[in-house]
């Protein structure tokens, strides 16, 4: 029981990170119908920017009060990563709008390689460590087995990740559902031509979608950095594939679906590692995706809409 609860906590933490990245995939797919394969690398860039800003603040400028430092890191990382996301869209995808469907997809893969290599060359190929910053936690429960005592820990770091994700998800859902910007985004998603006929600047709305996705990926990048303490130029690939899987599992185009898919992938991975073997955790995650898609081709929460013509 204790072991199960511990795995549950770990799975939710990992799933939150996947969920944050998955939102970027799902929103971009919703609005322009393309898979932004470079999104995982935007997450990686978010982690690098976080690390750079963190080191700048603590080692160079000598700030010591951690909560303030982390808040500044978070904001700066979101801003700069957004700028990256915006630039990628502007340079690589917008010129191809209206071209055949595969063109932006191929460009996205190219962009992913460009970003990885750019970071590899400028930052070096070695892993970048960051010593654990947030230590300690609370004991949720305790139990004893033949093997000894098991303590279920919820670390402060895990709490921060889960709470931040919850807050951001709520804010985001409200933004999409209630504000005029969110409405414009949904309008572009459903009928871009009509949105333009109502005075919506479609290009700007699409850019903002990329900016939002990148901002959330930056948060995920910072969380990843703090949780694992090591990053390199390649972390975006697997995290990106996982988050994309999460988006598809939840129903691509659906915001709550992305979050749910993220949590599920995180849980599957952690439980599989905990109860079976670590080596096959990715196989487990992808197999479940395959099985779900056989029975629910549009994902768990994605609903094919019947439209009246």
């Amino acid at each position, binding site marked *: 029981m204790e072991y199960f609860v511990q795995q549950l906590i770990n799975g939710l933490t990992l799933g939150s990170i996947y969920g944050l990245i998955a939102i970027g995939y799902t929103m971009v797919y919703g609005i322009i119908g393309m898979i932004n394969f470079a999104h995982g690398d935007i997450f990686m860039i978010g982690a690098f920017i976080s690390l750079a800003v963190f080191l700048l603040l603590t080692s160079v400028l000598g700030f010591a009060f951690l909560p303030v430092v982390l808040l500044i890191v978070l904001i700066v990382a979101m801003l700069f990563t957004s700028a990256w996301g915006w630039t990628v869209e502007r340079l690589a995808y917008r010129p191809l709008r209206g071209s055949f469907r595969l063109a932006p997809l191929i460009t996205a893969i190219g962009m992913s390689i460009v970003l990885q290599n750019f970071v590899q060359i400028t930052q070096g190929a070695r892993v970048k460590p960051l010593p654990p910053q947030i230590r300690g936690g609370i004991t949720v429960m305790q139990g004893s087995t033949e093997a000894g005592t098991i303590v279920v820990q919820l670390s402060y770091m895990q709490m921060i990740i889960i709470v931040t994700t919850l807050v951001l998800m709520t804010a985001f859902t409200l933004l999409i559902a209630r504000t005029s910007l969110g409405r414009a985004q949904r309008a572009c998603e*459903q009928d871009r031509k009509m949105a*333009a*006929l109502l*005075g919506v600047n479609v290009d700007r709305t699409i850019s903002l979608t990329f900016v939002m996705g990148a901002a959330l990926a930056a948060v995920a990048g910072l969380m990843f950095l703090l949780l694992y303490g090591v990053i390199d130029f390649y972390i975006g690939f697997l995290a990106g594939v996982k988050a994309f899987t999460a988006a598809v599992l939840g129903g691509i185009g659906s915001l709550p679906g992305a979050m749910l898919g993220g949590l599920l992938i995180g849980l599957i991975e952690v439980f599989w590692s905990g109860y079976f073997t670590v080596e096959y955790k990715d196989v487990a995650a992808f197999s479940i995706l395959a099985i779900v898609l056989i029975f629910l081709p549009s994902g768990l929460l994605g609903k094919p*809409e019947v439209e009246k013509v």
Partner: protein
Amino acid sequence: MRAAAEPLLSVRGVETYYGNIIALRGVDLEVSRGEIVTMIGANGAGKSTLMMTICGDPKPRSGQILYDGTDITAMPTHEIMQLGIAQSPEGRRIFPRMTVMENLQMGASLVDPNHFEDDLKRVSELFPRLKERLHQRGGTLSGGEQQMLAIARALMGRPKLLLLDEPSLGLAPLIVKQIFETIRELNENEGLTVFLVEQNAFHALKLAHRGYVMVNGNITMSGTGAELLKREEVRAAYLEGGRH
């Protein structure tokens, strides 16, 4: 005084292509302030293409479109709409996964939010059916209700020029009558300028002050609504058998 004599919309020698296929072969027309002007023509004549070309999507390959003294030929669609043009397009194009309310809010995107309540009240009076369905999704409305919503949505933008593309398409004659009556009221009471494209020539010509006939991307005839209704060619091609 010069401004008053100038038409609100003038289309001069506009040619539009889809790829290499020509859709509009040099169209000239004018719509003055306070007028209802209609364009009739068969399926595929280029009527909807003209509507969309006025709104900047697609862009004409040659010719010029002036609105209220401004050359809008090369402007992006959303900027053209900001000048006070609204369109209820072919196929209605309701946002299916948004509520009726949200569709109307989209229509009011360019308007000062302070006007929203008043404007909402006004379109609810024009189309009481919509009021009952404010929180229903657009995709679940019937065809007639969607048509009403498309017109209401366009009106929420407080346009000076209203473009209506086949508002009667697929609707029951009674609803067509009601919609045309609404257009006439808006024109008479509020001085709204309307450019209406129709296959339903009889009703459209009766409603309009002036009309144009489009055949194969060309304007072949023009005149007052009453004149065109009397013309033998018009009767033969668009009225006999097509009359409700």
